[in-house]
């Protein structure tokens, strides 16, 4: 592959979509750029061409999907920004959480466990609502840390905590699904 192709495929995801690297993002513009790129590179647009073009199209289209998914989801976007700034979120190795946070986690788990045991759909939905609000608040803080204060250590900690919140969200989701079936 030519150097030029390598360069573009390896551009950072923000640059690929013509966006400034920041946590706060214009999601409409992200989506529009994504669609514009797919309109050029998608395998359907190259199906009648030779093997080389078809392979390139698959690589490009795969890459655009990956980049889009990374930037679209807040947590993935934050992780990616940390990585760009040379600060990893160390989610697997760094498991030292603050006691206050762990306490909160236990309370959440208990509440979810109780609602699950009681098969209380309304309680679960209420918990889901509270969790959404909590996640939103934390995302605000994350934005401050990443875009304003550029305090990557604080942002990394927030990402680690948000990952736990994500897990809670999934648990409620599965519990709701199980109840509805």
């Amino acid at each position, binding site marked *: *592959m*030519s150097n*030029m*192709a390598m*360069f*573009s495929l390896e551009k950072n995801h923000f640059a690929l*979509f*013509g966006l400034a690297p920041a946590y706060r993002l214009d999601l409409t*513009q992200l989506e*529009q*750029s994504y*669609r*514009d*790129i*797919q*309109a*050029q*590179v*998608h*395998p*359907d*647009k190259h*199906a*009648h*061409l*030779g*093997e*080389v*073009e078809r392979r*390139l*199209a*698959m690589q*490009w*289209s*795969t890459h655009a*999907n*990956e980049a889009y*998914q990374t930037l679209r989801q807040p947590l993935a976007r934050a992780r990616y920004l940390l990585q760009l700034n040379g600060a990893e979120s160390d989610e697997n190795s760094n498991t030292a959480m603050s006691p206050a946070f762990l306490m909160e986690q236990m309370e959440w788990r208990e509440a979810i466990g109780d609602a699950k045991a009681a098969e209380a759909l309304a309680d679960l939905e209420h918990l889901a609502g509270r969790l959404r609000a909590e996640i939103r608040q934390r995302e605000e803080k994350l934005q401050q840390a990443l875009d304003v204060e550029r305090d990557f250590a604080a942002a990394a900690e927030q990402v680690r905590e948000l990952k736990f919140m994500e897990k809670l969200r999934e648990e409620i*989701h599965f519990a709701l*699904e199980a109840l*509805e*079936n």
Partner: protein
Amino acid sequence: MALLQIAEPGLSAAPHQHRLAVGIDLGTTNSLVATVRSSISVVLNDEDGRALLPSVVRYLADGTTEVGYAAQAMQSVDPHNTVVSAKRFMGRGVSDIAAIVNLPYQFVDAPGMVQLKTVAGVKSPVEVSAEILKALRARAEKSLGGELVGAVITVPAYFDDAQRQATKDAARLAGLNVLRLLNEPTAAAVAYGLDNAAEGIYVVYDLGGGTFDVSILRLSRGVFEVMATNGDSALGGDDFDHRIYCWVLEQTGLFALSAQDTRLLLTRAREAKEELTFHPETRITAVLSNGQAVDVLLTSKIFSEITLSLVNKTLAPTRKALRDANLGVEDVKGVVMVGGATRMPQIQRAVGEFFGQEPLNNLDPDKVVALGAAIQANVLAGNRSGDEWLLLDVIPLSLGLETMGGLVEKVITRNSTIPVARAQEFTTYKDGQTAMSIHVVQGERELVSDCRSLAKFELRGIPPMAAGAARVRVTFQVDADGLLSVSAREKNSGVEASVMVKPSYGLSDGEIADMLKASQQHAHDDMTARSLREQQVDGGRILEAVAAALAEDGELLNDAERGKIEERMAALRVTLEGNAPQAIKNAAEALNRATESFAGRRMNRSVQQALAGHKLEELES
């Protein structure tokens, strides 16, 4: 249904270069072939003016086959050799097939995919499907007056990798070049969306003879984006027939029927089901082989009762798809009904109630999938630029790897937009371990034993290291057909292994080539002639594409690069004059290699231009 009028301006090939391409709906019950002719998508009928080809194949003792209506007519007489609903067996083992005891076939439990014993020998579902595809191909080539450049074959969105691969194998066995495997609901959405200039969230509810799919799509400014898909690849109109059949046995106290009688009653059950779409009650009558007469009255009320659980079985996946798409019923603008079984009033009612709106029935539910596939085939064959729309489809079921304790680690989650690739890193767990076995599975469950096993392979030759020191990166790549390939690489040593994930029982390229040869009536000469023609077409196409690229973006090359490409174009032209397929192939490959970096630069430029155009628009607005 209004005919699909497709605008002319996107036409990229001169009319005389129109490439013959078709869309094929390879259904459980009925199959169809359609094409775009004079910018209109049309279904191609058989000589008697019929659009549908029943997906039935009968094997005769002399090795010949009957396909379609002729075979269907014989199914009660010769049930063992007349294969119906072969699609239900594609990529499936004996243990996967529900109610297998009720089927009149002699199954051979081949590893992975079942096979059927017939008077003409043991046949795999892939071969049976290939017979149907061959019949459609012959119909299309006759009606269009030339050889097909390729076909888009539709598959249920909920088909897993094994079922997709089996479908692609069947197409190749039928001598078809597969331009794309396209999900049936997506094909329907294309036909519906283009025809109605639809915008917003649409649900496609597709209940055919043997499969159920539900897809949720967002249609906006020419983009068809599948947000979620779900379904049941073993649920369809057949199951409703079966409920009626069981009810008849109950009413009459019959049991232990012969294969002939079973098939006869199932046929009567199906007729009764279709009658009940138009009448409140229907009589089911039959005379069994021992002379006993069956005569019972079935009302639509009873029919609704005995099939209630089946109807509900379609709503669970519908709910799941909505949840995966993060949407509620109130977000849905329209529900497009596809598949013959959606004609049943209880289905119409249930869907209407669930979504709180009348379902959309303004298309022919039998034809819409084939029409959509043909529209896409026309674009993929290069007859038309297709700039006006883009399909973004998803993978229906998660893909993962077996980890310790028989657990699944998901690598790609369901409803990811394809094409998609993802890598996961693993390590050795023993000192000096030199091999690592990799087991690829598909499904949503946590245990490997609850998921479908797709492939097992080994990465060998890892240099001995301490446990945990090796770093094996396993990469999953799902292409635009939804087919997976997996590669594994040890990072320190560079040792590599990869597989196109073919279910272990899938057909190898060699096997397909052999079968193709065997099925070719006329010997070697024909094969070479065909191969030469194919290479000539391919070579001509590449020349044409490179010439167009040079005219468009020639300034991306320096003189030396351009010189080299032109040299190889000339070389290819020379071989095209001759009659050696291999020489053409080699020259075409050489040209391909020479244009590799040029193609990369062109792709970059097109991306840059797309974004630049986008920014301009924003400034202007």
